[in-house]
């Protein structure tokens, strides 16, 4: 393990880390934005959920690399390809959680809000979504953590990320680089996970923390 390599190549390492972070986090956030309205609809109109769940399950089965490849003709070997593919992946993970979160709100609570005169939008925003938050964030965590890891695969189609360190390390038979890459991907993912846990705690002050 050649430790001296790290400080020597820090600018490259830092840039790759930032790129990987972008490629992992942005799709998860976009996935969240898309999943929220879809999930609310699916939780409300039950007949909508089974076909939607079937579609989500099928999309989830599609390996990310294959999805990257499929998008190349349309978006080229660019960041966009990876972002779109990982957004689809995030959708598959977050959407079921939005539905589950909405359904976990006790019916009695929902009815009480309606009985007190809350319109559906206010009830949704001030009662249902806050109570569904823990479950939704659980999905977001999976999307972000897996996304950061999957983003490194994008390097195989030339999209720059920490995956570069794997491939370069392999080509040069240079284990140090590979170790650094592994370490950074895992740490980056876990740091984002931790941030999300903190956000969840901040958003749900009423929750019991075990």
């Amino acid at each position, binding site marked *: 393990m050649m430790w001296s390599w790290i400080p020597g190549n820090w600018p490259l390492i830092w840039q790759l880390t930032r790129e990987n972070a972008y490629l992992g986090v942005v799709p998860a956030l976009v996935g969240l934005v898309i999943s929220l309205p879809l999930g609310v609809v699916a939780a409300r109109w*039950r007949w909508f959920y089974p076909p939607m769940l079937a579609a989500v*399950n*099928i999309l*989830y*089965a*599609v*390996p*990310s*690399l*294959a999805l990257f*490849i*499929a*998008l*190349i*003709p*349309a978006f080229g070997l660019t960041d966009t390809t990876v972002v779109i593919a990982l957004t689809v992946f995030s959708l598959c993970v977050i959407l079921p959680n939005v539905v589950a979160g909405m359904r976990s709100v006790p019916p009695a609570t929902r009815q009480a809000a309606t009985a007190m005169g809350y319109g559906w939008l206010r009830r949704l925003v001030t009662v249902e979504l806050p109570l569904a938050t823990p479950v939704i964030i659980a999905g977001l*965590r*999976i999307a972000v*953590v*897996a996304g*950061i*890891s*999957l983003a*490194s*695969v994008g*390097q*195989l*189609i030339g999209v720059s990320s*920490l*995956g570069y*360190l*794997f*491939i370069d*390390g*392999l080509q040069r*038979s240079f*284990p140090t680089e*590979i*170790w650094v*890459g*592994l370490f950074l*991907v*895992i740490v980056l*993912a*876990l740091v984002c*996970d931790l941030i999300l846990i903190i956000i969840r705690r901040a958003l749900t002050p009423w929750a019991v923390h*075990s």
Partner: protein
Amino acid sequence: MSFFSYAWDWITSSANWHGSDSIPHQVLAHIGYSALPLLIAAVIAIPAGVAIGHRGGRLANVVINVANAWRSIPTLGLLILLAVFLGFSALTWLLPLVVLAIPPILINAAAGVAGVDPGVRDAATGVGMTTWQQILRVEVPIAVPLILLGLRTSAIFVVATATIAAYIGLGGLGRFIFDGLASNEYGPVAGGALLVVFLAVLVLVLFTVLTRLLTPAGLRQQAETEN
């Protein structure tokens, strides 16, 4: 030309169906590279998960929390690391695939068994079942849907990762992708990718059907009425 037209042209060209690197050959190889790790992982993870779920307590919580940490492991990096240290041996691809396949199975088995209604557990002990009888006749059957879900998630994941394993010299459908990328031919790249998608969706359907068949009747109907 779109992804599908490239893929379709390549798949339907007969030359690709003959010879030692043909489509059928790589499909079978891919299935082999996926099935074996899945089987090994199942043999390890199902009993371990059932035991952990039955025990309950803090160990179960730790296991659930390890789940997220596991998801952060980049499969490409792990594969490459092992390739560098072990060369191109069977262990190089088997080890990471087994290691990556274990967590979904383990977590789901543990959750399935831990989630058995406490009243049912109490009744099982109360009627005079031994621990083994309780686990095998009551807890595991009730946990079957979740165990199968874990197997399904793992299977899909393994199929996807086996594709990447071709990068370090393995056969399988990834071979078409990486050879094509190297020689700048999009046909095999698209074709290989489409075939992988077919395979993954096939695995999904297979496990969904299997779940339907193996879920004890009482639970299946209960789940339907709840949904």
